[in-house]
């Protein structure tokens, strides 16, 4: 339960971030670096993984999850329902090996209704896997042992998290030309 709360507040936090930043961006050129100038190629879709500072040895650490093209016969990789299919390459840097347990990477939809384990990080603090969702959160937890590959939920504390770039997409209500449209009317608070 505690974990769920943490995650929910994380989602809220990310939304608040998106809400707080974007209207400001409309009015002033002081865009945060991440919005001002995208990097080239798949870098544009790279997810920054931010430490929660909950785990000893991760206070100064950071990471990234690079969304890569998943080779297939077509020029775009999507699933039957039309969701993008990516290879996700996760890497954490400047973290210390935990005294006990293992770092495990997960992806979850923002509603937390679906959770998928990507796998446990190797000695180089790296792991990769595929994701079939358009909007998701990458979560790295510290687990006592590596969970079963069909694990439905993590059980250890969250060490790092980050939102896919598509999370920047949010309702236009309340912003710019739609300033008079209340966000709440469209399900955003």
């Amino acid at each position, binding site marked *: 339960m505690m974990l769920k709360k943490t995650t929910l507040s994380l989602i809220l936090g990310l939304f608040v971030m998106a809400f707080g930043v974007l209207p400001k961006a409309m009015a002033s050129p002081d865009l945060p670096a991440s919005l001002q100038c995208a990097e080239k190629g798949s870098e544009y879709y790279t997810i920054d993984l931010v430490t929660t500072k909950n785990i000893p040895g991760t206070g100064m650490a950071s990471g990234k999850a690079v969304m890569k*093209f998943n080779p297939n016969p077509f020029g775009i990789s999507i699933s039957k329902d039309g969701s993008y299919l990516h290879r996700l390459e996760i890497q954490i840097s400047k973290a210390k090996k935990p005294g006990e347990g293992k770092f495990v990477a997960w992806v979850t939809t923002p509603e937390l209704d679906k959770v998928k384990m990507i796998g446990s990080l190797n000695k180089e603090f790296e792991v990769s896997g595929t994701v079939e969702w358009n909007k998701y959160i990458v979560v790295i937890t510290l687990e006592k042992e590596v969970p079963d590959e069909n694990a439905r939920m993590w059980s250890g504390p969250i060490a790092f998290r980050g939102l896919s770039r598509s999370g920047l997409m949010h309702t236009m209500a309340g912003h710019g030309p739609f300033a008079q449209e209340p966000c709440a009317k469209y399900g955003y608070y």
Partner: protein
Amino acid sequence: MQKFYPNTFFLLLIIAGCSQSLQAQHEHHNMSGHGMDMDTTQAVWRMPPMNMEMPMLPGMHNELPPVEPFLAGMGLQKEDIPFAKPREILELADGDTVELQASIVRRSLEGKDYVMYGYNGQYPGPLLKAPQNSTVVVEFNNQIEFPTTVHWHGLRHDYRFDGTLFAQDPVLIGESFTYELYFRDAGVYWYHPHVLEYIQQDLGLYGNMLVEPPEDDYYNPVNREEIVILDDILIDEQGLIPWGKSNPTHALMGRFGNVMLVNGKTDYQLNVDKNEVLRFYITNVANTRTFNMVFEGAKVKVVGSDISKFEEEVYTENIPIAVAERYIVEVLYEEPGTYPILNSIQAINHFRGEFYPHQDTLGMVTVSEHEVEESYTEAFNSLRVNEDVKKDIAEYEPYFDKPVDKKLELKVEVQNLPIPIMQSMELDTAYVPHLEWNDTMPMMNWLSTGKQVEWILHDPATGKNNMDINWDFKKGDVVKLRIFNDPDTFHPMNHPFHIHGQRHLVLNIDGAENPNMVWKDTSIIPVGATVDLLIDMSNPGKWMMHCHIGEHLDAGMMLGFEVGE
């Protein structure tokens, strides 16, 4: 590339003034596309149908595209225009001559009549079936309301018959031109105008060519072959939404239709036997829509694409196909029942900031209890490795790691767009998807025209753009072209990139190597992606490369190159 700063831009816009307002035409304007009473002598702008739950962009109610509207057959008595018929199949032999005429036709879709165009009074145009390595002469005659040409998409033949501005002047109204086609590669190809594609092709000027290989076992044995053309068209209760006559509307995202067409019809149907294996030759001729085709209830195997078979066959659940691409797939129906063929996508609602699943039914397939006479399921159930293709492609392997010869950056520049559009776009592009599967901003898109929007192929080596670029190559050159689709441009968009007269391989996307190659003439360049193409400059002449989205092409996105002998 830096993102522009909105405040500076707004200032510029205010100084420059923006698009015209025509209050008079908008008295009955509302969201469902109702407009003026029908006028049969001239086209009048009316807003395209829109998603009702999206509020109208404030301050935009009176905006109209600042270009002249066009509809086909204005001033003609509708009753005098003949109805188009389904396409004929023309079985051709080497040396044959075909007559092809573009003319005004009447089309019936879901019980309503529309004035459109057709080749030989047919929808789609006649299917030209010809043996590989044959030559066919086409006597073309133009009876539509514009000058036009015919481009034979994908053929590696004589550039003088390519239908581009490098090859010929447009065929004037009433006049004729003789094309000589040479079918060098087996596979499925298509023909369409290379003048005002966004109007002429959208109105129905397209048809397939099927080039048949001499080998009996070139493809797997199947019970039946189906030639399928995917398209969409934009219609409201009053009829077709007008096109911009000299510059396209929908210049940002291209014109998405709201009615899906398979072989020019809304009610594509197939009856098949249990365990029947079909080979589909699929072509996407839409102005901008990429389809994600799903054969519900069937097993699907991908066999080939634009100009060849794949090195290796693979099973798939869905077929994403961009504008002008072709895929050859084999389909097995094992269970009796009725199944839809779908376009299955995750659409975006930018106003709500959400992805949502969306499906269009493209057609229906009924599988009977009756077992198919001859079973080809065994061939279907094994995946073939095409050694002939592997051998051909292996000859180009030494070039895979060569340095990049040419680079292109894809971007867009806009001027004089209405301020609310500029503001909304700033929000809209906080995140840009790899590919736009639906019209996420129908009003803004409609109002953006080729007058305000310029799509750009930028050559960073010379600083030149679009038709100022004229690359020189020699026959036999193997050219590595690196294309970067800048995600940080004003409104990024995927581009189906077409290279005339040659064939190319997709080497890698964002550094991820392509493990299973196929010869292409059109490849998707997703937003944010860097794609390396290896072009086999095998065919001398003066050619074009361009984005195949009709509106992007008209808004500048093309360049020239010459392959010397």
